[in-house]
């Protein structure tokens, strides 16, 4: 963390959280990603999180239009984008107003004083200029006329005023680069590549960047530069990846590994659309990304593509999953492989489209008519979205059943270093396609171990058969209204999903392997839970973390692990949905709950306080 010491020599930091905030048009996302990329290149571990307004072009200067990007860099592993901000860069009064509460006293705030005009101050809802009031006293405030200095630095290159104005984010980035002893090369190269045909834009941005850097260096307005040393990371080739891209790539890797072509049927919805955008780029790998007329057509066309023999997936967020429910039931009945990705957001209804939540767990588990079990798994970090998209595909085609993959807005938009994987190092995927049989083809004949049926695709001679939503007779797949058969088939469909437990890894505990408190979580909360548990464990508490990626079925050793701890607390960003699942499976344990429904991730401090409370409560 930053210190209050202001000697003008380089000071070493273990980790630091920086947040860039401004108007949605101020280029804060670009500024943040540049800072992250440069830091990753220096060997820091990073975790980032963008924060956009839900309005696309909210009125300039208002609090609705504030867009932010937070990055956490460290010389040791970082698992979350960070709770408290060490350095806030606020490009206007609205940005200051909406973000000040995240900055603890003593930390640094950089503001563009040019933007603190009467009009902007009023638009942000301040009565008077906050920079002149005592509310800024607790902070180290660096006031810089960023806009005018930027314009001054590029005045002679002949760029129109609004384009020139747009370079001010680079001036701010230059200042922060100096502050954290970062080189400018990466960002300079970025502009040279990105704006190849716009030399004026390249020139303006580079000049603004350098001007900001020099300004910070020349004037003693700022604390001396910090150094964040490289993290001790596993050697290898890395890239920075966000959860949605990792999800898309995981599916592409699964398609290549399985020898199937990838089909996506999807309808745009926040925060899942980026998976559609990413997959749409990769037609050259045979990826067909079909933007359907609605959520239902998205999933139903996916079932069609699966029937025709492709690795078929659909992507959505909570409200979309609700619309897809009936069709997922059809895929369960037809026993077709497919993956449904739900990038969860705040609900119910339209809810908080740009915020994170874990409140679709029960919908994923039970949100369909009839007895309709599906495999449910959840990714827990931006980079492991890759692995779980791959595993979801593998489970779907090997077990011939739909798999629901849960991620959330937090890990989908957050990014982290990903040690690049190759298709070769991923596990085999064996699909169950058949090309011919002796005698009549029986579509519902099953593998005795997995209970999965075979996959006969149109175009294969001699295997013509019909499937559909009406109850099937076992083996033949003919329509059957027989009472005994219905009970039998209902049990088979359940048993098929239950037996997946034989094919998934056992649950592992991090921290204490037995002891006083077992923290239980699932999905995207891993980073904060791990950070909190780990730091208490290192302080000598007998606390462990059991984080679930496999939800239906649960890992086979779940109960055995629960038994090893005196207390169990289930932490979720909902009202206690996983807690409900666990109490129905293992009613013999008593569970504490920790729940948050604010559209925000857990903060490490709140978790540590909660865990301490439970530990102290004898």
């Amino acid at each position: 963390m930053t210190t209050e010491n202001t000697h003008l020599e380089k000071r070493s930091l273990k980790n630091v959280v920086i947040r860039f905030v401004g108007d949605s048009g101020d280029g804060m996302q670009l500024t943040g990603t540049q800072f992250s990329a440069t830091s990753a290149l220096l060997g820091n571990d990073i975790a980032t999180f963008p924060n956009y307004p839900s309005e696309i072009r909210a009125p300039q200067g208002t609090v609705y239009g504030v867009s932010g990007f937070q990055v956490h860099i460290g010389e040791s592993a970082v698992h979350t984008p960070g709770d408290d901000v060490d350095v806030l860069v606020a490009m206007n009064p609205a940005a200051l107003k909406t973000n000040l509460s995240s900055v603890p006293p003593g930390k640094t705030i950089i503001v563009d004083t040019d933007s603190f005009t009467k009009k902007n101050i009023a638009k942000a809802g301040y009565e008077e200029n906050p920079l002149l009031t005592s509310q800024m006293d607790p902070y180290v405030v660096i006031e810089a006329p960023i806009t005018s200095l930027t314009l001054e630095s590029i005045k002679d290159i002949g760029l129109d005023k609004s384009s020139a104005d747009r370079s001010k984010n680079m001036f701010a980035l230059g200042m922060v680069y100096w502050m954290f002893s970062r080189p400018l090369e990466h960002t300079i190269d970025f502009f040279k590549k990105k704006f190849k045909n716009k030399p004026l834009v390249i020139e303006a941005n580079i000049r603004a960047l350098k001007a900001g850097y020099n300004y910070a260096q020349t004037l003693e307005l700022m604390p001396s530069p910090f150094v964040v040393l490289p993290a001790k990371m596993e050697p290898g080739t890395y890239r920075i990846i966000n959860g949605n891209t990792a999800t898309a790539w995981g599916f592409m890797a699964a398609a290549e590994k399985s020898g199937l072509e990838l089909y996506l049927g999807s309808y745009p919805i926040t925060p899942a659309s980026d998976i559609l955008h990413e997959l749409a780029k990769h037609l050259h790998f045979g990826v067909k990304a079909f933007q359907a007329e609605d959520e239902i057509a998205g999933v139903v066309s996916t079932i069609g593509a699966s029937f025709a023999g492709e690795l078929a997936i659909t992507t959505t967020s909570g409200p979309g999953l609700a619309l897809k429910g009936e069709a997922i039931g059809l895929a369960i009945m037809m026993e077709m492989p497919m993956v449904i990705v739900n990038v969860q957001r705040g609900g119910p209804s339209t809810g908080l489209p740009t915020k994170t939540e874990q409140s679709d767990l029960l919908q994923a588990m039970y949100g369909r008519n009839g007895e309709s079990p599906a495999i449910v798994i959840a990714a827990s970090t931006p980079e492991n979205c890759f692995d779980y998209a791959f595993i979801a595909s593998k489970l779907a085609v090997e077990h011939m059943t739909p798999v629901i993959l849960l991620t959330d807005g937090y890990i989908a938009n957050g990014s982290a270093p990903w040690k690049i994987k190759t298709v070769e190092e991923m596990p085999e995927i064996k699909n169950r396609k058949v090309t011919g049989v002796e005698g009549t083809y029986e579509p519902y004949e099953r593998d005795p171990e997995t209970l999965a049926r075979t996959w006969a695709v149109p175009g294969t001679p001699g295997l013509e058969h019909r499937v559909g939503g009406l109850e099937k007779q076992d083996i033949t797949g003919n329509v059957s209204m027989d009472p005994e058969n219905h009970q039998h088939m209902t049990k088979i469909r359940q048993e098929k999903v239950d037996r997946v437990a034989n094919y998934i890894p056992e649950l592992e505990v991090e921290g204490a392997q037995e002891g006083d408190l077992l923290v239980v979580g699932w999905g995207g909360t891993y980073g904060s839970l791990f950070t909190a548990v780990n730091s208490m464990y290192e302080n000598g508490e007998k606390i462990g973390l059991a984080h679930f990626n496999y939800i239906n079925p649960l890992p086979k050793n779940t109960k055995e692990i629960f038994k090893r701890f005196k207390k169990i607390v289930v932490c979720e960003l909902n009202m206690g949905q996983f807690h409900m699942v666990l109490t129905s499976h293992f009613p013999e344990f008593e569970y504490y709950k920790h729940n948050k429904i604010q559209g925000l991730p857990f903060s490490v401090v709140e978790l540590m306080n909660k865990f301490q409370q439970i530990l102290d409560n004898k």
Partner: protein
Amino acid sequence: MTDTNKPVYTFKDFASDQEVRWCPGCDDYVVLRSIQKALPLMNRKKEDFVFVSGIGCSSRFPYYMDTYGIHGIHGRAAALATGIKLANHDLSVWIATGDGDSLAIGGNHFIHLIRRNIDVNLILFNNEIYGLTKGQFSPTSLIGQKTKSSPFGNIQPPFHPGELAIGSGSKFFARVAGGDTKLQQRIFVEAEKFEGAAIIEVMQNCVIFNDGAYDKYTDKAVKSDAQLRVEHGKPMIFGKENNKGLVLEGLKLKVVTIGENGVTEGDILVHNAIDPDPTLHLMLARLEMPIVVGVIRAVPGKTVDELCNLRLAETRAKSPFKSVNDLFASGETYEVK
């Protein structure tokens, strides 16, 4: 005519072993038999046919066909078919659907299938009623029609399937009476040849809940005067005496009699099914007496499934990436030692 590599089929090859369970006298039997007879004429392999459906009486269709098939969920057959066709462009995909299935609950998929001109054949069994759910009015039921859910008479105005299809950009629209197996077979063969979404409206009599809905067009006594069968390139002449025809008067179609008021055969409109301008096709589709049957519109155009495949092949040929490994290793990567 038949390719020597392709097996020769008879209608029996396309009949499944499932017992057909429609009500006796239902037109669905006729359509089923017409399809089973038309498929052997299409010069395609049996394993390349896929029949998909939604929910409703007619949606039982796939179970009775010995082909690949999906009996889907209500209204979604068009979306199923789209996925199948995008996945495998070489299949011959058929949709069996009804007025409730495609014009009510599945209306969105119906219009978008047409907009995209997906190369499938959609048989719309229009009986102007809900059969399977036992007799509620449908989106094609007439104003005033008394049904179980409109005991005082239906007040919801009907869709004209032809108008809806052509309004959605349909490139192929045909209509046929439920009992007319000969014309059905011809249209099915035409539809299969056509590249794009072929919409075939069948005026299907439901003997149980809406018997006689089409009597005014299909009764033996009136049939030749009440149905005008169009053929591309031929004058639109009909009638018992083969002496009635259509002319344009101002912006309206008018029935005239050849030999009366100086009308000669040369005055009669010649059917141009391939005219991209839908104006006349729309008027023909909407005409109530006589009702127009046959292929009203068959305009060649691009299909989205084909475009998708072409673009895929092009980008694949040009791409420097042969494996996703190349993508993962491209762009901004860095080494940790």
